[in-house]
């Protein structure tokens, strides 16, 4: 598919630099129509992936990346879309496979998908107060109560920050590469008596 096919039809769409597949920045208002056009007119009939991104310092801070595959032309296309007020239109009405991906992006980043039929968390429990893949969230976690109050009462257990020292992502000094996940020792504590 030529880039002009998309940019002519949706003038707000921009071509982004990419090393592997054609990549476009799509405006939120155009997203559903773009995906519909790609599916129905251009043969991009399979939603291969949908994920959230936290850009940290950019505006808009959150974004969604969609990979579409054409099973007839054997071609991929990647769509970037920025979140407006942390919200992005849902494409799960066009590709049912997007349903759980969007729930995961909501769970991990707090991106709301407008028009999603079932906008609940999917990995963490419903009452969990944070979105763990946001940049400011510590890998070790933040203390909150266990999801089940009766189990918490019997065991005295809470969801507590995990010990980091000695773990796989902790550098014992020195600087880790920027490209790797890394963590500081935040709460190493072996004094807690076990049940």
């Amino acid at each position, binding site marked *: 598919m030529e880039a002009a096919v998309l940019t002519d039809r949706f003038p707000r769409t921009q071509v982004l630099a990419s090393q592997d597949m054609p990549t476009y920045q799509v405006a939120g208002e155009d997203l559903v129509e773009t995906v519909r056009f790609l599916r129905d007119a251009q043969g991009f009939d399979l939603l291969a992936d949908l994920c959230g991104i936290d850009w940290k310092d950019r505006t808009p801070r959150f974004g969604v990346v969609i990979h579409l595959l054409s099973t007839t032309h054997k071609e991929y296309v990647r769509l970037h879309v920025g979140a407006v007020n942390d919200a992005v239109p849902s494409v799960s009405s066009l590709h049912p496979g997007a349903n759980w991906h969007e729930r995961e992006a909501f769970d991990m980043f707090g991106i709301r998908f407008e028009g999603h039929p079932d906008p609940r968390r999917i*990995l*963490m*429990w419903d009452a969990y107060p*944070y979105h*763990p893949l946001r940049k400011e*969230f*510590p*890998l*070790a*976690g*933040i203390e909150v109560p*266990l*999801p*089940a109050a009766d*189990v918490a009462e*019997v*065991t005295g*257990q809470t*969801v*507590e*920050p*995990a*010990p*980091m020292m000695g*773990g*796989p*992502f902790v550098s014992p000094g020195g600087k880790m590469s920027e490209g790797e996940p890394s963590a500081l020792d935040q709460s190493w504590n072996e004094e807690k008596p*076990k*049940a």
Partner: protein
Amino acid sequence: MGGCPNLRQTTMVKSDFGYNSKVEGEVIVTRADAVVNWVRSHSVWPMPMGLACCAIELMGAGGSRFDISRFGMEVMRFSPRQADCMIVAGTVTYKMAEVVRRIYDQMAEPKWVVAMGACASTGGMYRSYATLQGVDNIVPVDIYISGCPPRPEALLDGMMLLQEKIRQEGGSLKRTFRGRTVETKIVR
């Protein structure tokens, strides 16, 4: 039959070894604890709490190659009401911790817990916001098995260690049930 005192005993030949059959006949004297524990240790009914990759090795231990039934614990039950040993095989997330504890509570006394592998024992390599750092935070664990995953032999070794532990338990006729001590009566 020459030099075997045990065989002679069973055929009621008078012997200088073992029990004095003139006095005791076919009676064996022991402690109730020892008998009860012996029975329990050879009929462990595991509840396979398979939560991650360790469960694959647990299945391996149940298969013909490693054959857990050699040790009298092949009757894996997926209902906690029919099991007395929970083998926690895998990563326990905080979301799953509730379920693990509930299933433990539903198992009938006496019951034991085996933490199989690094994850169940300590959280393993998952030092993150989502993973319970050791199932012993929510249920009492009897045996910890190291490894990621432990080989089936290690599981069998751990289970035999559990049998050893069961055999040494005292007061096996007494149990606490909802805060009360209940004593099992032996009917003669």
